[in-house]
């Protein structure tokens, strides 16, 4: 018998709103650029749209999870110890999903929405995808059901994971004690993840536990020496809600249509964002590599990097 569990995200909605209002109150005299009305409206509208999209497709995902659970390897059930284990393993699955979402354009097309704001505040946390189901993001949690964790349990801990990630989207909190920063994902670590500064690209994919980044070599600490710039490499430059939700899908469609040969069409979907068949664009690797090269040339490191092809999407 499955327990009747509440939705952690639905329960958290009032707290989301109160914390946002508190953050707005806090920044009004300290950093008047931290919030912008249109940006906030787009972020929150994307968040609301995401819950609608989730409601429309949630049933199908649950059905798939239940189907796979029928073939489970172990009968874990709802034992007390299974809850924390499920939480940790679900967070690992999130890390794998999130890393893939930044390295494979197909998944990036859905995830880019979350990064498309040039601001970093609590409203940015709610800027969520409308196309996660279409992008097949749910695949990454399916192994947990095959192991034997009940779908109800996994979706509950996944909800808690999502709620945890809300409060780390802020510049108000600087650093926690070292022991906390060592284990948990924090505002400092996640600011790095949202940064477009070359030194920070493709790092800190963690959901709740930063240990995954430390273990798999993707951890980069925040430095006080450089102001963080948020958003995506090629900023949207538009507050159009629909464009924010679908622009990368349009980009994929255009590239696939125009690409020469089947292999290149496929690569435009599965290669990292910014890949191009003729090398005319920049990916995070090329931007980061050029930045690293310039760091090794001290006389050049104070000025921006030299001429290059078009920026990555």
């Amino acid at each position: 018998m499955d327990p009747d569990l509440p939705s952690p995200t639905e329960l958290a909605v009032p707290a989301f709103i109160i914390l946002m209002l508190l953050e707005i109150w806090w920044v009004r005299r300290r950093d008047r650029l931290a919030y912008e009305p249109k940006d906030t409206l787009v972020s929150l509208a994307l968040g609301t749209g995401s819950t609608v999209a989730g409601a429309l497709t949630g049933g199908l995902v649950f059905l798939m999870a239940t189907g796979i659970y029928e073939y489970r390897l172990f009968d874990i059930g709802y034992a007390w110890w299974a809850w924390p284990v499920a939480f940790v393993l679900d967070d690992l699955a999130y890390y794998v999903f999130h890393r893939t979402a930044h390295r494979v354009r197909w998944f990036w097309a859905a995830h880019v929405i979350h990064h498309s704001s040039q601001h970093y505040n609590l409203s940015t946390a709610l800027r969520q995808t409308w196309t996660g189901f279409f992008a097949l993001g749910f695949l990454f949690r399916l192994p947990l059901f095959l192991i034997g964790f009940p779908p109800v349990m996994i979706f509950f801990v996944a909800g808690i994971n999502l709620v945890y990630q809300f409060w780390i989207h802020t510049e108000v909190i600087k650093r926690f004690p070292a022991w906390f920063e060592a284990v948990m994902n924090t505002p400092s670590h996640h600011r790095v993840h949202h940064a477009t500064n070359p030194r920070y690209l493709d790092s800190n994919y963690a959901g709740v536990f930063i240990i995954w980044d430390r273990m798999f070599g993707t951890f980069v600490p925040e430095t006080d020496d450089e102001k963080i710039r948020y958003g995506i490499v090629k900023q949207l430059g538009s507050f159009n809600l629909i464009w924010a939700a679908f622009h990368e899908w349009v980009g994929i469609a255009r590239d696939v249509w125009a690409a020469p040969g089947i292999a290149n069409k496929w690569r435009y979907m599965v290669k990292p964002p910014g890949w191009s068949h003729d090398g005319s664009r920049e990916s995070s690797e090329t931007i980061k590599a050029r930045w690293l090269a310039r760091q090794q040339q001290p006389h050049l490191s104070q000025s921006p990097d030299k001429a290059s092809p078009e920026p990555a999407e």
Partner: protein
Amino acid sequence: MDWKLLAGSIAAILFVAWIVRLMGLGQRRLESEAEAISLSADLIPGFEGVSSLLSANGAAALVMDQEGRIALIKSHGAQFAGRLIARPVPARQQGDQWIVDSGDYFFGTVRFNLDKQGADRLLTMM
């Protein structure tokens, strides 16, 4: 789908956005041509501006690099966004303002307030 929750969420987001607007948060302008050059490097990877043309209201700039490429910078809420644009610069005059087309539908056109000297400089880019 919990329709009450959805309605409440929509009401809440409108309220939060209204509060942000009411407090006058998120207004920023370019202060100098040097700032525009610095921003262009941040906004367009590999772009190293050497000169710039600033709109009098600080809401936009054109930045040129050593190779003659031109970056169009516009204020975007409390931040800025940029695009490399084609040469000659696709600009037209409308009343007291100059309108530069980014060539990107959603990025749109950008308005410049220019004095005679600024307009002359823009014309040399066209």
